């Protein structure tokens, strides 16, 4: 942990920006470059930056949920994304969509989004588990 004023001030600014950007990337993912994996990496690096500036304990406190639990929840999300297909007699992981509205303004929500959120959580959880574990070793 470095006691750098510049890093700490910058982190406060960057953290929220990076988290917001990661969610933007996550939601953008289905039809354009982006997605859960890259979004998860951005979010994970936001927390990793925080832990470098303020120490791993502060980062854990900020995250509220243990990164391991986050990864597990992500796996469950991803599995859950495959299951609705059973209701319609399709194969596992066949995408199921809901549509609201008409024409250009149609809003699509579907299982691929749930899957992407699952990936997002798994990536954050897994990366931070490793990063925080390594950082805590040093103290």
């Amino acid at each position, binding site marked *: 942990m470095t006691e750098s004023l510049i890093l700490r001030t910058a982190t406060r600014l960057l953290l929220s920006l990076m988290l917001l950007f990661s969610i933007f990337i996550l939601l953008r993912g289905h039809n354009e470059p982006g997605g859960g994996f890259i979004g998860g990496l951005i979010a994970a690096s936001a927390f990793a930056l925080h832990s470098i500036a303020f120490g791993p304990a502060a980062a854990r406190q900020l995250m509220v949920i243990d990164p391991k639990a986050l990864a597990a929840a992500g796996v*469950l999300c991803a599995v859950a994304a495959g299951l609705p297909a059973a209701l319609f007699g*399709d194969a596992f992981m066949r995408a199921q969509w809901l549509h609201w509205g008409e024409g250009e303004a149609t809003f699509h929500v579907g299982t691929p989004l749930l899957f992407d959120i699952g990936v997002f959580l798994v990536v954050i959880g897994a990366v931070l588990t490793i990063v925080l574990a390594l950082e805590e070793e040093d103290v």
Partner: protein
Amino acid sequence: MSWFLIAPILVPMTTAALAVLLWNQRPAQRAVSACGAGLHLITTILLMVQVWRGGILAGQMGDWPAPFGITLVADHLSAVMVLITGVMGFGVCLYSLSDMNENRENNGFHPLYHVLLTGVTGAFITGDLFNLYVWFEVMLIASFALLALGSEKEQLDGAIKYAAINLVSTVMFLIAIGTLYGLTGTLNMADLALRLPHVEQRGLVTTIAVLFMIAFGIKSAVFPLFFWLPASYHTPAVAVSAIFAGLLTKVGVYALVRTFTLIFTSDVAYTHGALLVVAGLTMVTGVLGAAAQNEIRRILSFHIISQIGYMIMGLALYTPLGLIGAVFYLVHHIIVKTNLFLVAGIIRRLTGSMELKRIGGLYKASPLLVVLFLIPALSLSGIPPLSGFWAKLVLIRASLEIGSYAIAATAVLVGALTLFSMTKIWGEAFWKPHPEGPARTLGIGDLTATERALLIGPIMVFAALTIAIGLWAQPFLDLATRASGELLERTPYIDAVMGVRP
């Protein structure tokens, strides 16, 4: 249809995730783990029944048609391997409930165990080479962590060697996949089987075949590539080494059988000839290595290697009878080997060590354990009427049929040497009195009732299975015959995969 295929993968995956969520609640975690393993067993039985009744089952994930999407396929070989994974997974899980210490459970034994089961099951069911790679990695990372779990010095030492060699094998596998894709433009195994005969660069195909042989050979610990196994398998907790001994190397063997019957059959004289030599050397070095050891689990580790030789021998003969033998041997070996490791765990519990010099007196102290040890031990060395006898008999007949007398003689000799090291364990651990006086050896009666149920129960069931396969060998031989028929015939498998259109 495809739900039967995906269920055995989803159940342990979900169980692992739930177990992580219950990270610090030990009783709940144990309950989830046991239930998950039970459910996994049920799904594997359902899959086996489906395949037995309806033949090869294939499913396309996400309804993407065959060569593009990920295919899951279960023929009789896959189904029986998955079934045996379910049985072993459940049994060893129960055993681990009593065997694991608190430190290891708190550090995530249960989640890792189920991740391992996910990887093994996935590797058996998948019909896509790259997907196979992914399952291998899932399995590998879980096995690294399980091996190092507890962080004892010996474990870390073993885990380093295990990790280094297996990572190299992984990279080999990846390079082979890349080259194969460059050559054919597909990684679906059935599609590969169709396209590979039309590839013009025959030399390159054989090269790739050998790359795969090396990659899977490291995983399954065959002759020149086995050194990681005896360096690491005796170090972790008993339940962990039991499931490793039963399943991990066998996934490598399964991958060899699958690729060298379905895909690489163009240059049988060369590839399978090489495999035959490797098989013979594997058998001999394994059993000789075992003869030099003095610790129960290290002896058993070397025996894994020599037994792998038998399975590879069945594949290398590449006749219907040879493959029947290989399939039969796979199933028999998984049960017997896991069981022997579990028995070794009990021996340590009762006498305080696994070093043969420092234990003894078990014959007097616990007659039940004598029976439970003798059944898998004699089966391992191929004494009739136990399961190992039929497995060896079929293999030796297969080799005599095509006139490979050398390998048949090797197989018989290695069987005898196996008996020798089993008698060594017998003499040291059971006959001889304990060096520190008879009071140092506990009997089974000294365990608590729960311990007895959880530790002895799985061993008894596995022993019963061994006897059942020995006495009623016919249904199992039927199963192996069907499996080998499918492996040699190839077209039903290819049709099942490529014919399925949404």
